[in-house]
């Protein structure tokens, strides 16, 4: 029987294997940020341990950095301490840090690929659930907790139970690929499989609907694997992958010979069998908008909000969850999505703040103005994305339309820095989680694609972007 791509990467990284026990897996890349690492470094110090492979470890600060003027001091003292702590830890343990003033600073899952640190066939971990993003390059990329961060720092390995495999096959072609985006594909998948549908599995996304996507779009897909409950998401690398990583700042010197071996090895065999399968046809899918408090609570832009009965399909607990969600979101079943007015727009996050996301959103914004009652912001995923966008003049398009144009960071995706919603505010957001209070206590989040967010900013309410001329 053939092997899946996941199984091939797994097997090539086993250090110790015993029956019915977790395997000790070698980790090729460890990405570190300020929020989930301080206690791990403390643990090393308490036990007088070193970082085993500083040369496989990279750090940046992204979660609570301000996105406003970087020449000013950080006002929030606890954030300032956490950022300073990362600087000290990196210095003490010899870890390369892209600090707040580095041109390479940015959201850890945006900079890894951009710098050529993310490599096909490698194992990558980070103390952040959206590490799954790197799976777009055919890497096995896992989000881990702080104890595991400490374990990887100390040993460059992790004890892992072997996940099951889950094939998500995306078939067909989108009618309007500028209006119906990778974000809409992944939200459709999560809506169908549920937020726990991928629990215990590594998803491999396959099919024409996936290979058609650019690398930026593939990252959006893999990024939200965790929202479907999966341990990781994977896409087999192809020519687009190899071209993307060529000549980046940290691309390995022997890159072409690596590409040759990746081409040969990094794909699921034709007779490989997955433990689970889901097929989505995207010929007719619509832009998606979340209406509830988890990413599975999502519907088409031209649909009314479902009733808790329709949503829950007879499951009493899910029904209760939907009722609670509608109450929190201050929405009613039957309301058309396009009739929902918004107060804020956030274009950013490791899901949708890459160059292509900003280009697509700018096409809607060009020559328009943000609706007078809406506050809108663009937070590029990295300083490099910001610079590239500025070279293309995208900053001017957004600023002329009254968007705020910010410095790179996680920003309002999780609101650890000053970028937060006020209680009751409703936001069209390109981020990944619409949990209660995620973007600010009492804030109401609707997950959408960058083009949907841009169109909502201009119109003050959600708009079906298929009606707009996006070419």
């Amino acid at each position, binding site marked *: 029987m053939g092997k899946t791509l996941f199984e091939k990467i797994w097997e090539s990284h086993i*250090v*110790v294997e015993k029956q*019915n*026990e*977790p395997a*000790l897996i*070698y980790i*090729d890349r460890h990405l570190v940020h300020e*929020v*989930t690492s*301080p*206690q791990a470094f*403390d643990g090393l110090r308490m*036990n007088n*341990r070193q970082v*085993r492979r500083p040369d496989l470890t*990279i750090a940046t600060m992204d*979660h609570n950095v301000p996105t406003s003027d970087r020449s000013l001091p950080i006002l*929030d003292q606890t954030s300032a*301490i*956490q950022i300073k702590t990362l600087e000290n830890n990196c210095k003490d343990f010899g870890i*390369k840090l892209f600090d707040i003033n580095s041109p390479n600073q940015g959201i850890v899952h945006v900079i890894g690929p951009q710098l050529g*640190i993310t490599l096909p*066939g*490698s194992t990558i971990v980070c103390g*952040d*659930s959206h590490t799954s993003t790197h799976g777009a390059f055919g890497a096995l990329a896992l*989000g*881990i*907790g*702080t*104890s*595991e961060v*400490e*374990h990887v720092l*100390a040993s*460059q*390995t992790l*004890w892992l139970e072997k*996940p099951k495999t889950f094939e998500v096959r995306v078939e067909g072609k989108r009618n309007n690929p500028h209006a119906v985006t990778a974000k809409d594909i992944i939200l459709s998948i999560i809506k169908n499989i549920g937020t*726990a549908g991928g*629990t215990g599995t590594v998803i491999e996304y396959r099919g024409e609907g996936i290979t058609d996507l650019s690398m930026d779009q593939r990252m959006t897909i893999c990024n939200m694997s965790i929202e479907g*409950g999966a341990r990781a998401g994977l896409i087999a690398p192809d020519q687009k992958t190899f071209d993307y990583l060529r000549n980046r700042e*940290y691309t*390995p010197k022997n890159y072409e010979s*690596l590409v040759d071996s990746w081409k040969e090895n990094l794909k699921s065999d034709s007779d490989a069998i997955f433990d689970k399968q889901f097929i989505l046809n995207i010929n007719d899918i619509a832009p998606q908008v979340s209406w509830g408090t*988890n990413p599975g609570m999502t519907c088409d832009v031209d649909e009314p909000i479902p009733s808790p009965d329709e949503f829950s399909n007879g499951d009493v*607990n899910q029904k*209760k*969850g939907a009722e*609670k969600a509608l109450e929190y979101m201050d929405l009613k079943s039957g309301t058309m999505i396009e009739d929902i007015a918004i107060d804020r727009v956030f274009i950013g996050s490791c899901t949708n703040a890459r160059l292509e996301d900003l280009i697509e959103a700018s096409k809607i914004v060009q020559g328009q103005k943000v609706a007078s009652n809406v506050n809108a912001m663009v937070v590029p995923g990295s300083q490099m994305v910001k610079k590239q966008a500025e070279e293309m003049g995208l900053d001017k398009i957004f600023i002329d339309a009254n968007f705020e144009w910010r410095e790179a960071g996680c920003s309002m995706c999780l609101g*650890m820095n000053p970028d937060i919603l006020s*209680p009751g505010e409703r936001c069209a957001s390109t981020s990944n*989680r619409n*949990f*209660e*209070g*995620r973007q600010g*206590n*009492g804030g109401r989040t609707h997950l959408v694609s960058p083009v949907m967010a841009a169109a909502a900013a201009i119109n003050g309410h959600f708009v079906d972007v298929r009606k707009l001329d996006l070419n």
Partner: protein
Amino acid sequence: MEPFQNVKSIVTPLDKVNVDTDQIIPKQFLKLVQKSGFGKFLFFNWRYDENENVKSDFILNDPKYNKSKILVAGDNFGCGSSREHAVWALDDYGFSVIISSSFADIFFSNCFKNGILPISLESKIIQKLLQETNVVEVDLENQIIRTTSEDISFTINSHKKKILLEGLDDIAQTFQFEDKISEFEEKSTVPSVL
């Protein structure tokens, strides 16, 4: 890590599905650089209103459950962010057993690193436990939850059970395989970053 002891306590019924780690410990409390002291922030936005007044309708604010060590909740507990702060908060508050019909993977793994026992049981048993008002005993060694009316058995991976019962330090365990790690590194074809 302290070895896991049998737990006897009433259960705190948190009758919600998809309890995410953002609810367990909201982001404003992730800025601390130590592991201790997170208990007072557990379920902060459910326990307190925007003026930080206690919300009397939230289960943890019922004094009856003050000493409870066992939390029972609905499906997909601990989903979302990987923040281990969620487990530190549950631990610091006083919970040492979390029972649900299913757990998110990263949260589940984080529990074992901190001496917390997560137990998965069928939904119908969860529904019964949510109604349980008497003291129950969780016996890890024998993998049994004893209620006044019945013994409920649960499964746990033998390796994970050992880690909890012996309170093992993961990293010290791994260092026993130092030679294997070095051997792997010699063969590895993945280049360094720098």
